[in-house]
């Protein structure tokens, strides 16, 4: 109960921790353009694999910006979730 309440305790204009998983590689150079999120690439061999973006996002506007950037980078999104603390 406590856990789920914390999980849903997110508002439109407040910061929140998110985790976004995309298919393909994003390198660290892009961190600046992706809301300063932590970028981790897990290779499935060579350049194949998944990238996890995680960290604090300022508000929903920034979240949409990050998702849009991922789209512009042409990478399919696998998961978006509010990160459990």
């Amino acid at each position, binding site marked *: 109960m406590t856990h789920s309440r914390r999980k849903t305790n997110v508002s439109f204009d407040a910061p929140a921790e998110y985790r976004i998983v995309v*298919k*393909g*590689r994003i390198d660290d*150079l892009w961190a600046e353009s992706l809301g300063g999120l932590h970028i981790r690439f897990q290779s499935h*061999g*060579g*350049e*194949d694999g998944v990238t996890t973006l995680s960290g604090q996002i300022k508000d929903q506007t920034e979240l949409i910006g990050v998702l*849009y950037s991922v*789209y*512009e*980078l*042409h*990478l399919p999104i696998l998961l978006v979730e509010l990160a459990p603390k």
Partner: protein
Amino acid sequence: MERNTTHIPILRTKMYRPPVPSDHVYRPELLERLEKQTPRAMTLVSAPAGYGKTTLVSCWLERSACPSAFLALDEHDNDLRQFLSYFLGAVQTISPAIGLETPSILNAPDLPPVPVIGRSLANDLHRIEEQFILVLDDFHCIHDKSVHVLLREILRHPPRSMHLVMVTRKDPFLPISTLRALNRVTEVRTRDLRFTDPEVHVFLKSNLGDQIENATSKLVAEKTEGWVTGLRLAVLAMRGHDEVESELSELTGTTRYVMDYLISEVLANQSLAARHFLLRSSILDRFSSSLCDALRGPDDKRALTEMDGETFITGLLKDNAFLIALDRENHWFRYHHLFKDLLQRQMKGQFKAEEIAALHSRASEWFESRGYIEEAIDHALAAGDALAAAKVIEQSRHAALDTDQWHALQRWLNRIPPEIQQVRPILLLSKAWILLFSARMGAVLPIIERVESLLDKDPEEAALLSEINFFRGLVCYFKGDGESSVAFFTKATEQLPKGSFIALRSQAEYWLCVALHLNGRKKTAIRRLHQGIRSRDLTEGMLLSRMVFGLCFIHMLNGECLPAYQEGLRLRELGSTNRLVFAETWGMYVQGNASFQMFDLDAARRHFSRIVENRYIANPRAAVDAMAGLSMTRQFMGEPDEADETIRLAQEYAEWTKEPMHFDIVRSCRARIALLRGDLDSASRWLRSLSETSGNPIMLFFLENPAITECRVLIATGSDVGLKEAIERLDNLQQNSKAWQNTCQMMEIMILRAQACQRRGRLQEALKVLERAVAMAEPGGTIRPFRELGQPMANLLKKLAEKNVAVEFIEKLLAAFPPISSSSRLSRRLVTSKSSSPSSLTVEPLTNRELDVLELLAQRLRNKEIAEKLFISPETVRTHLQNIYQKIDVCNRSQAVASAVTLGILPAIENRPDFRPLSDPAG
């Protein structure tokens, strides 16, 4: 920069359909699908950057038999006004006559509610007969909600003639699924746009030669996933680099990764000079060769000798390198969006932050020098130099104000951080102008005070001094200080150098005349205005219309209806010829107001209706007043339902403006209408709902002033206390109006006062006041304030006429009152024809008992005899007689009989059954 029918500058390049690249791959299935679906409401082309969306659409339009318009949207279009003016501009390339309604809305001080714009735009679009296609390219740039709401309105009942094509990187916030369910939308999505293997092969062959093998095509197709931008990059990278193919085959990972590899290869293929040009120009949304040259800084000398902008652009064109022409003359270009992004990323890796800022600064200077203010501001801000952006505005504001583009100025100003606005006198003055135009004079004083304190330290130039004096004059004027305001406005007109700053010149001249009038120098003011009008060229629409408005203003304040009407007509014509909305709508208002005051109800209804239709672009106070005027006009015309409907519209309008004053005007107008209907209870109720009004407002020539209506209701409900209070209040209002040289309101106040005195039984005082009011009203032909008070006022006027005062004018006034309503009894007695009675002398209907008394009076019976015949006391007969005398405005019995005959209340003597000619021997 060109100008269209609205006051928003239009970049024609945004409406230029990009040509189809020479190496494009013809895609018959997709084209056929698009062409077949034009009877549907819309087509949605939705895919990420670089899939050839625009190329496909352009190719389709090129072949289609259907005429088409194209509009490339960008971030700046996230402003409903801006979006709409481009939208209309694009439609006008198909049907120049479109846009009778909407363009004028665009110049409104505040845009009307979106549904209203939607209706107006839909009306305009429905008027187009011919089928056409309208493309909105890069629709993903639009995130402004009002634009989405507008399109939603349009798509709800799509115009038959228009097929809307939306080209976007993300699905729009529109009811696409509904349209899909109704089979009204064609969709072309990423999967459709993706190049097939054979298409990739055709593309590579046309770019790299016939020797390209199927295997190579297959490899490129796989690595780029049929993404045409990737293909194009691959072509550029592979030109002259044999190893690209093998390196490409070794690359794993996503397409994006391939892209980064390819772009770096492309750049490596370029000469140093060309590479620098590419990287520098990536900061630009659009560029010309001259702009590319301007971006070279002093540090780029080494590259100077090698290449200039034109050679650079020619080279890019030859390579088909993501360059999109924005006009037929090959003057303006832009990069393909994705290519620009890729270049920008490379640039950020290679240039230092200060170098990038310097590029933006140079771009800003170039745009400013060519008059592209919006982009100059963009780049100054991108350079992190808000001060430079402020200076751009300071340099451009005269041009904007002189062409009545204060909206643009407001938009520019909004982009400057407040802390900079606060310390720049010119920016503060610009803000003062915006306040003046949006009728928020109250906020001007602190701004001007701030400007003055800032300028204490600086030497003042003449033009600036003139401007400050102008605003000081305004502040004084609104305080009612005529003398000081005349002094300031005079200084302002004298200090302003000739031929400069037309907006200031015309405003200062206009306000000087208005202030002269306030100062009791009406003749000088009018002479000056006429002189000003004569000396102006007809092309100087702005100056001329302000002068003519000055004449309207003064004539209306003086209750000079006919000249006001004539100047109002001239103002409206000037406004429509010069596309000056303020002039056109004020002209309509003046015509309506003057017609109403002259009690020409048909004309009043016509002119008021016109301004009510245009209420969202008119000055809001004028619009509300016109609605009050229209409502009363209709009540007078005997159309109470229409009057109620107009009031409802006024209420809706007040809710839109959210201006508390407007709510009060609507409420007090309701009270007035109730009075006209004789419904005193409702009138009092509406009166009680008024909010506390503070002091005496500036009433000008407006028809509905709650302060006056309050007195009106007090008088009508008429307890002695109420009457006393009304008189006291009217005296205060009178003082105020006198100070403002406001004859128009003085008349209204005095007429009410006369009625109040009469109701208190002070007939002599009433007549004295009324005499003065009549003297004021006669020269200008004002009728309405008398007429509004109904029969008691008519009686009072008749008493005045009896004293031989303004007999002719009073007769004219009385003609405006309704004829006596005919009771059945009365009509029975109307033996003589109506036309034989002078219609000017109309009377309050007599009661049946009074008619009986009158009939017996005609038989020359005495009071006692009448009393006996009617079974009443002689006392009662006397009361009836007094009432009859008052009603038909006579003093004795013989006059009463004569007048009753003239009025057609009694049959003429010879028609009377009891008539006995003297010569009749039988008598």
